[in-house]
């Protein structure tokens, strides 16, 4: 058992207070921090990226987010998010996979987990990262507090990446806030037929930066080619690589792979090996997804 993480309050005029947030109009007066002000200062002294998106994310969105957050966290970028279901939770989970830096903002008190089903994730972020809120300890959630929380997430970030969101003012609120606050807006594309791809596609059409993976985000933060995302080190034989590529291009079930002209038996073995090496995961409905 790890000890309870330290807690602290941080005034807007404290030198530890996140500088980006302090300059913002309507900045919170006090931040309540699980994990302690020192840790928050350390985490926000490096570039920070907010990953936001729909609660009704597809498994493609979830896997992409995990991979993106993992790559960024491994490169020393702090992943900011909102601990909601869907994309936000996937972002934190991805960062935690590599024990990377991550900060989450609560709509109520920082010690009040919302949604309650994310207790385990809330605790783990408090242990290795920071859970932040402008609301006093133990405060419940108000109707307005989710949007107010979003403003803090965006305010702490240098860049906001929208992974999956409907094209709807509420869903795209983080992007709008980012524009108002002068933060870079970026988006991850999806399938054009998916409702949760409409939001990111609209942002991309309006000039948001295209994010295909951690490297695009690093290029945006540091300049092109300055910092390299750590490459995945999964040694694969050419035949396995080919199956992986086919899965990535949409032949995501055994039936589809077999229909695409692969030998069924070899494909079964290939899928099992890819899953065992961690290059693939089996999603819901028996479909395989490349691990982001």
């Amino acid at each position: 058992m790890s000890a309870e993480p330290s807690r602290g309050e941080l005034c807007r005029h404290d030198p530890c207070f996140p500088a980006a947030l302090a300059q913002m109009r309507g900045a919170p007066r006090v931040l309540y921090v699980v994990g302690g002000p020192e840790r928050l200062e350390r985490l926000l002294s490096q570039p920070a990226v907010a990953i936001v998106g729909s609660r009704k994310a597809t498994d493609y969105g979830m896997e992409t987010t995990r991979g993106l957050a993992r790559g960024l966290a491994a490169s020393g970028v702090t992943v900011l998010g909102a601990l909601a279901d869907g994309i936000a939770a996937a972002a934190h989970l991805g960062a935690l996979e590599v024990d990377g830096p991550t900060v989450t903002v609560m709509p109520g008190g920082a010690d009040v987990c919302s949604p309650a089903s994310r207790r385990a994730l809330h605790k783990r972020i408090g242990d290795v990262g920071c859970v932040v809120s402008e609301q006093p300890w133990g405060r419940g959630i108000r109707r307005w507090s989710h949007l107010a929380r979003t403003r803090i997430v965006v305010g702490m970030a240098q860049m906001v990446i929208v992974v999956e969101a409907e094209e709807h003012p509420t869903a795209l609120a983080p992007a709008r806030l980012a524009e108002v606050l002068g933060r870079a807006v970026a988006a991850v594309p999806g399938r054009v037929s998916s409702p949760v791809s409409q939001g990111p596609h609209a942002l991309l059409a309006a000039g948001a930066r295209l994010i295909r993976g951690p490297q695009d985000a690093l290029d945006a933060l540091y300049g092109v080619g300055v910092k390299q995302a750590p490459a995945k080190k999964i040694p694969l034989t050419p035949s396995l690589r080919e199956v992986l590529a086919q899965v990535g291009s949409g032949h995501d079930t055994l039936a589809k792979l077999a229909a695409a002209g692969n030998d069924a038996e070899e494909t079964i073995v290939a899928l099992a090996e890819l899953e065992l090496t961690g290059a693939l995961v089996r999603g819901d409905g028996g479909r395989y997804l490349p691990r982001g």
Partner: protein
Amino acid sequence: MLARAQTFTIEGLQTRQVTVEVDIRGGLPNFAIVGLANAAVREARDRVQAAILNSGYEFPARRITANLAPGDVPKAGPGFDLALACAVLAASGQISNERLANHALFGELSLDGEVRPCHGSLAIAQATREAGLHALVLAPQRAREAGLVEDLGVVAARCLQSVVRVLNGGPGDAVTPASVPPRIGRGEMGEEWEQDLGDVRGQRQAVRALLVAAAGAHNMLLSGPPGTGKTMLAQRLPSILPPLSSSEAIEVTRIHSITGSLDSEELVRRRPFRSPHHSVTTAGLIGGAGRGWVGEVVLAHNGVLFLDELSEFSRSVLEALRQPLEDGRVAIVRAQHSAVYPARLMLVAATNPCPCGYLGEGERCRCTEADLARHRRKLSGPLLDRIDLLATVERPSASELRAAPVTSSQNAREQVIGARERQAARLKDDGVTANAQMDVHMLRRHMALDASGVQMLRKVQECGELSARGQHRLLRVARTVADLEGSRHTSKRHLAEALGWRAEVTLQSRRVA
């Protein structure tokens, strides 16, 4: 005067011998039945009286006392009529006592003296032989069923007069007794099934999963969007299962004869297929609603229990399936009675992949991650732990629907029987017949993993997400895949296929919640 007749009562699946004693003496005319008889037995009084008079015999207008011994066994059902009538006739000197002692009598009487068939004749016939009685007299409709018991005289009697003739040394009414066929070989199973696997188009993966499940008697779960053919596939499972062996057939016939769900007089050859509606209660599924009530799991003994729309079943009902799935029997204990019933069955369940049903169908599914988590939680735990194969049923494409079927039931059944024979030969010293029943020790002895298999298994263990039980399930299914192929060793490709069928969602440990 006193007379005794022999009959049997059925409680649950057990039989108990009952002696019907009738005493006739002077006094006011009266007919009393004592000895823990239920309503159906007490009503026999009026039936017996009418039947005796309408058959042209005399019903003594004296004080008649009938006792059903032993007095502590509850007696139920209308099958006592015949024994009561004969004991009355013997006590009043209308038939001789000597044959009554070594004939068991079982049947209901109609008011005109006709002998009506009762449920459970096969069980009664077995009990008659065990009790060492000479013959069993019963309705002609049940004579073939009772004739399945070897070394037992079965006498059919159409009416009370025929019974009297038999008890006075005459012949019974003619019927042709059924015979127990010797173990049914491969060639003789060419019979037609209304529901053939050849009706299924596309679904190559699901059909393969069905084949593997049938070959090793593994429990399986079919998951897929509505209308893709989950139920259709499950209903075709009995057609590819090996036929019942003769001892299994007797067991099944006995159970279904007692519950009255037998649809012919013949021996049941097909494995039972039970598909209770999802509103079933625990007592309905397991048994124990009343004395001697057997549940669906018992009716599915040696066959298939199909649970359609698995997520709609109440959780407590699914929890109750643990014991039968683990032990192949159910022990029912109620305040007044307890019983152990056989329930060795193959569980097949079907479910939608998510609450709306359209997960994996592109953008049609609008379930949130939380909905999915709830759905998964509902299925996981008690039951998913006992599912060996998870088959995903997909919507077949238009070209697949036009294409030739993957296989026919005949074809698949031959493969299944071949695999089962290999298993039975290997497991003959262990007291089980199919791979799904192998315990840890048997697994160790019979897996015969080759080098590539060992290496693959080690990789699975290193991933760290599959529990020990999950690994055992994986090994059992891999063994079945190898058996289907006729391979002595279990190698990498068999394990790989079994991995593809596993029910666990993730292999890789992801460390955080």
